[in-house]
């Protein structure tokens, strides 16, 4: 944060005005609206005149709601697995792709494709691949000698891992590209210094590359945490939260509560709990990063 002598000036407001007006109208208002209804029993059938204020009732219900906790657990699991795995694979891919291979561009484009394809198409293809008896994945596993391959999307144990696999697959290309960009920013001289100190390639990676990518990692973690708590499309299309509640995640349960059970007040209150949780996590990351930023 810069400290400079301030004089009153109007220009900054002009700069943010176009964005800010739109932001207020199209984002902030609906968001506050949802906050408002989270304290009510609103649903679209009641309309506004029959909606009543229920105080913290929705929040109380939530803490006693078994499905909410399952959704939260699944979501945390999803986040805790997909983000580290994606980051580790991407950072390795990025380092290798960075000046250590031929055809870098071609490879980069290939791994980026999952990120730019429509979620509908992706889900349909993966459902074909995950088919337990006819899908290519299990065919492949059987060929490798796995006698009893998982039932994937129809299996209580494997459905969430299957969704995670798709999540990781979708994020790899994007994360790798961003890491590659981050690598460009690391000065050669640091590596030269490391080499003079007799560091091995592995030590270079651990002591130079990884720490120097901290800012990039921060950016990726912040945005991925947000995205992973909003994961919806793949779950909705591939499993609809099932089997049982094996893949119910928060965004999906919020959707089901609001639009299948018609409890929009309740759905909004869950969304706000979710939001506050993400906000808290982001704030922590922010603080952590600010603290370390000064070292560089």
């Amino acid at each position, binding site marked *: 944060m810069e400290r400079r002598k301030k004089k009153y000036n109007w220009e900054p407001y002009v700069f943010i005005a176009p964005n800010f007006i739109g932001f207020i109208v199209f984002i902030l208002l609906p968001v506050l609206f949802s906050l408002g209804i989270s304290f009510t029993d609103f649903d679209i059938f009641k309309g*506004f005149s029959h909606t009543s204020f229920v105080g913290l009732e929705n929040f109380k219900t939530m803490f006693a709601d078994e499905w909410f906790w399952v959704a939260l657990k699944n979501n945390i699991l999803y986040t805790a697995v997909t983000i580290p795995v994606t980051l580790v694979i991407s950072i390795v891919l990025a380092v290798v792709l960075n000046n250590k291979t031929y055809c870098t561009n071609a490879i980069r484009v290939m791994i980026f494709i999952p990120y730019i394809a429509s979620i509908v198409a992706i889900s349909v293809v993966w459902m074909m691949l995950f088919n337990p008896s006819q899908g290519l994945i299990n065919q492949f596993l059987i060929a490798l000698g796995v006698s009893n391959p998982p*039932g994937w*999307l129809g299996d209580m144990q494997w459905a969430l891992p299957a969704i995670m696999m798709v999540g990781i697959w979708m994020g790899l290309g994007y994360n790798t590209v961003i890491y590659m960009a981050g690598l460009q920013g690391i000065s050669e001289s640091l590596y030269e210094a490391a080499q003079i100190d007799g560091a091995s390639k592995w030590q270079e990676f651990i002591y130079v590359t990884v720490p120097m990518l901290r800012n990039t990692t921060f950016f990726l973690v912040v945005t991925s945490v947000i995205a992973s708590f909003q994961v919806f499309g793949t779950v909705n299309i591939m499993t609809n939260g099932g089997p049982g509640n094996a893949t119910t995640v928060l965004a999906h349960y919020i959707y089901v509560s609001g639009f*299948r059970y018609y409890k929009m007040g309740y759905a909004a209150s869950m969304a706000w709990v979710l939001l506050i949780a993400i906000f808290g996590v982001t704030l922590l990351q922010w603080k952590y990063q600010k603290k370390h930023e000064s070292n560089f």
Partner: protein
Amino acid sequence: MGKMLRKLTTGLLAGTLAVTTLVGCGSPNNASKDKEAASETAAPAEKDAKSSNGAQKLVVWGGVPAESGPQKLVDAWNSQNPDTPAEYVRYVNDESGNTKLDTGLLSGEQIDVFFTYSADLLQKRAESGMLEDLRNFKGDEFVNSEISGGMDAVPQINGGLYSMPTAIETIGILLNQKMLDAKGIKIPENWTMAQFMDIAKQLTGEFDGKKVYGTTVLYSELPLPIAETTLGGDWIYKSDTESNFDHPVFKANAMLKEMITNGSALPYEEVVSRKLAAYSHPAFLNGEIAMMPTAAWMLRYVKDLENFPHDFVTTFAPFPRLDENTPNPYAAVLNNHISMNSKSQNKDKAWEFMQFWVKEASKYVEKAPSWNKANQEEVVKLILGENSEKLFDAEAYKKVMLNPELKYSLVTKTTGLAQVMQIYKDETTKFILDATSEEDYYKNLKTKADAAIQKEVK
């Protein structure tokens, strides 16, 4: 940082309060809108009628794709009613599609006539005042004289008539005649679950070099509707405040699970990952299962030889009963409910259109019509199609699907229906996948469903 956080929190709180107050007493716009809506019922206002280019038109929302019948029906109406042409808008009958319709109705979008496909949605829409009570147009008389089953078979909500069914959905089982013949199997009259299990086992095995399962045990993402066909529309309710899952007929589910375990029914993983849990026709028409649960309208896939090439005759059987002493006649339901928006600007024409749809649907839409004066032979011809002898056992069709002894399954209770169905689905899945024991399955079903219903009651 701390200071900033505090400021932000204060700001958010202030915003929250402001909004809650607004919502509490109705935000200015919405409040006036509601008042407007209230006065509209008495004296039709001007807004939407004017905005639609001056000309009068009817807007009709339905879930059936326009090209599978509704467009032709609407065209027929338009040629007879050039002054008030109708426009058909298709919405997808899922959560977001229904939300779109509901929010449209709520916010005053011009929708004069629309369709509802589930009992609990119909009830919610009726109770919210979105629907016109058709008794205002002597709808009850029309239903009694024109619709099979009359008022007794039609949902009435708090004494009002808010919709008319346009189709009869009959459910039953499709069978692959070739496979039956190869094993010399004949389906007994009024067969029982035990016989069903036995026949499924016999049909399981190799056929034409392909692995064949006797049947699938899921329909509409739920176990085969043995309980529903036995108990009728309110099959999940014992009373207004209690679920019915301790009823002995639900024991059929354990037998259905047994069929998956012993390999005579399509494995659950397979069903789920191929999206066969709702409708299993791709597996049936591909010769992977010998029997499949069906609703009459699904016969269109049997006729679709381009996407589902097959060379066997399809025959029909009713759903098995739990045992000899448990008849299950509730295999038909009046469905595809047509309703009128209570805020329609053109109610008389809308009502005319609704009657037109009930009577004319049989000519264009490939579903058994609810109209009791429809020519049954014509309907059979429309539903089974050309060259039907190569595809269907028409006699069996008439005997099973048009059986005059079938009773209409009528839903009258909807308290927590969506939640209970979700519980039923989740718990059954866990049971089938061996994540719960049989004992726990029935216990959980009962307690969780009871809790869900009670939560809605208070």
